[in-house]
C-alpha cells in the first residue's frame, strides 16, 4: 500500500465507499456511471482443488462475465416492474475492508485489492446469506474522475451460498 500516497488511497477509499453506498441503496443506474466504457466485470467459477493445483478458479466459466453493455442490460431489467426476484428487494450491506492500493500498469491507473463481506437478507424470515470475496479492481482516472476499469471478484466459496446473483459485488 505504501507504494502509493495517502492522498491516492483516500481518493480510492472514497470511491469504493460511494460505490458500496450506491449498491446498498439500489441506485444501479448511478452505479453504472462509475464504470469506464470498456469495463471488464467478472466473477469466475471456483472449484475445490488440491493445494498443488492452484486456487481453483476456472478460466472459461464465470458467474459474471460482463461488459458495460451487459451490465446495462442487467440494470435495465432490474428497473422493470417485472424483476420479481428483486421485488421485494434484497437488503444488502457491502462491508468493504482491507483496501490495498498499488500503482496500475497504465500511467493513469491504480490497481486496488479489497476484501468484501456481503450481507444479504430478503423477505421476513430470519435467514440471511453471507458472501466473502476478494475484489481485484483496476481504476482509471478519466478527466479528473476515478472510474472502474476492471473488477475481478474472487469468491471464497466453491458453491455459491445465496439463491441467486441478482445483486452485485
Amino acid at each position, binding site marked *: 500500500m505504501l507504494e502509493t500516497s495517502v492522498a491516492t488511497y483516500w481518493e480510492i477509499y472514497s470511491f469504493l465507499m460511494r460505490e458500496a453506498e450506491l449498491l446498498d441503496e439500489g441506485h444501479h443506474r448511478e452505479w453504472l456511471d462509475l464504470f469506464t466504457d470498456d469495463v471488464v466485470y467478472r*466473477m469466475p*467459477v471456483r*472449484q*475445490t*482443488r*488440491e493445494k498443488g*493445483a492452484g486456487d*481453483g478458479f*476456472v*478460466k*472459461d*466459466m*464465470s*458467474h*459474471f*462475465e460482463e*461488459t458495460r*453493455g*451487459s451490465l*446495462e*442490460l*442487467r440494470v*435495465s*431489467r432490474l428497473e*422493470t416492474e*417485472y*424483476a*420479481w*426476484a*428483486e421485488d421485494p428487494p434484497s437488503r444488502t450491506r457491502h462491508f468493504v475492508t482491507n483496501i490495498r492500493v498499488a500503482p496500475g500498469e497504465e500511467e493513469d491507473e491504480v490497481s486496488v485489492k479489497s476484501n468484501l463481506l456481503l450481507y444479504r437478507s430478503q423477505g421476513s*424470515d430470519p*435467514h440471511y446469506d453471507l458472501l466473502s470475496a476478494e475484489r481485484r479492481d483496476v481504476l482509471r482516472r478519466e478527466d479528473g474522475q476515478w472510474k472502474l476499469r476492471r473488477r475481478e471478484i474472487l469468491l471464497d466459496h*466453491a*458453491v*455459491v*451460498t*445465496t*439463491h*441467486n*446473483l*441478482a445483486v452485485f459485488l
Partner: protein
Amino acid sequence: MLDQPNQERETYEELWEARRAFEEESKLLAKVFNDPGIFDLEVKKIFAKSWAFLAHESEIPNPGDYVVRRIVNDSFIVSRDEHGEIHVLFNMCRHRGMQVCRSDVGNASHFRCPYHGWTYKNTGKLNGVPFNKEIFGPGGINKEEWGLTPAPKSGIYEGMIFACMDPQAPSLEDYIGEAGWYLDFLLKKSPAGMEVVGAPQRWVLPADWKLSSENFFGDGYHTQSTHMSTISTGIMRVKKVSYLKDGVQIRAGIHGGGFMAFKPGTYLNYPRSIVESMLDNLNSDQVGLIEEHSILPLNFTIFPNLSFLNSSLVAEQGGRSVPFLSMRLWQPIGPGKMEIWSWCLVEKDAPEEFKKASSKAYLSTFGTSGTFEQDDAENWRNVTKVAAGEMAGRHYLNYRMGLDHVRPLPDSEWPGPGTAYPKMYVDFAQRLFWSTYFDHLLK
C-alpha cells in the same frame, strides 16, 4: 390408544390419496413440495433407483482426469484411466471409510487415502496397502476383493456419464428410451459432439427439486409472466409475450419436453457450420421438423432431475440473440432444498468466438446470475416456503391445462416417438412427471 399418531403411516396414506386425486381429478397436493417424510421417501424410492447424471466425458478428456460428483449424499469419483476408459467409483475407502478423494477435479493415476495410506488405481483397483503382510498375515489382503466399490450401474449416453444405485435397474439406453430421439437435436448438432465450457456453476437454492423438473418438463406457460422483464428489455427477442404458446409439448417414455418455433432460416442464429452439420447429422424425420416446421427443442427433462435448455438470447444491450445449450441437475440436498449444477455445452467443432458468445449468452440469462434463472428461482423458493405448513396438506393445485380441448398430434403429423401436443401452454408433460413420481414413490 389406536388413535396414536404414526407420522410415517400418515405420510403414506396421504400420498395414496394424493395420487388418486391427481390421477382422477388432475389436482396436486401442494404438500409434496415441502415435507421431510416425503423427502426421505424420494431419496429411497426415486434417487436410489433412477439413473443419475454425473458428468460429461469432456470434463475428463485425458487419461488420469477425474471429477468428484454426487447423487444426493453419495460421493462418486468419475475417472478416466490410462486406457481412456471411464470408471464411476464410490468415494469411500474400503478400509475405514475415509473419503478417498477430497477435491472436485484433478488428474491422478492413483488415489491415496490419507487415513492409513491405502492407494487405489484410478480404475478403483486396490494398489498399495502399507505393511500389508504384517497386518493381514502372510497372504496379505485380497486386493481384487477390496478395490473401490464401483457404482452398481453406470453408463454413457452421448458423452453423458450416468450412474444408478439400483443393480436391478434397466440399461441406460432403455431408461432414456424414446427421449433419445429428442436429445439428438440437443447433442448431435455436430458429429464432433459436445463439450462442457469450463465447469458447472453450482449454487444452493431453498426450493424443491420437483418444481424445477416439472417446469423444464413443459411449463411454457410461465414465460409470459415470470420472464416478462426479459421480453420488455429485449433479452428475449420476440413479437409477443405469448411466443411460446404455440410450441409443441412432448411426452417420451417417462421423460418430457417442448419445441419452440424459430424464424425460418435463422436457426436460432447458430453459425453456418453448425447449421450445416446439424442438418447433415440428424435423420430425415428430425430435419423435417427443422426445415418444414422451423421448430427446435427448447426444453427437455430426463426423469427425475436432469434438464436441458436450448435457447437463443441477448446478452448485451442492443446485441443480437446467440444460441446456447444448458444442462442442469436439480440436486436435492434436503426437504425443500437443492443444489443446482448448471453446465454450458457447445459443439466441439464450433468456431471459438461462437463458443465465447454462446457461453456469455448462457451465463447472462441462466445460471447463478441469469436474468431468467433469477425469476424462476424466485417462484420455486416461494412455492416451497408456503408449502411448509398445515394448509398445504389440504391445498390442491391445478393441472388441467389443455386437458379438455387439446388432442395429441396424430402419428401422421408427428414423426417422433412418444406423444406430441400442438401446444406449449398445456399440462400433458407435467402430468407425465407427476404420474411417474407417484409410481416411484408408492411402488
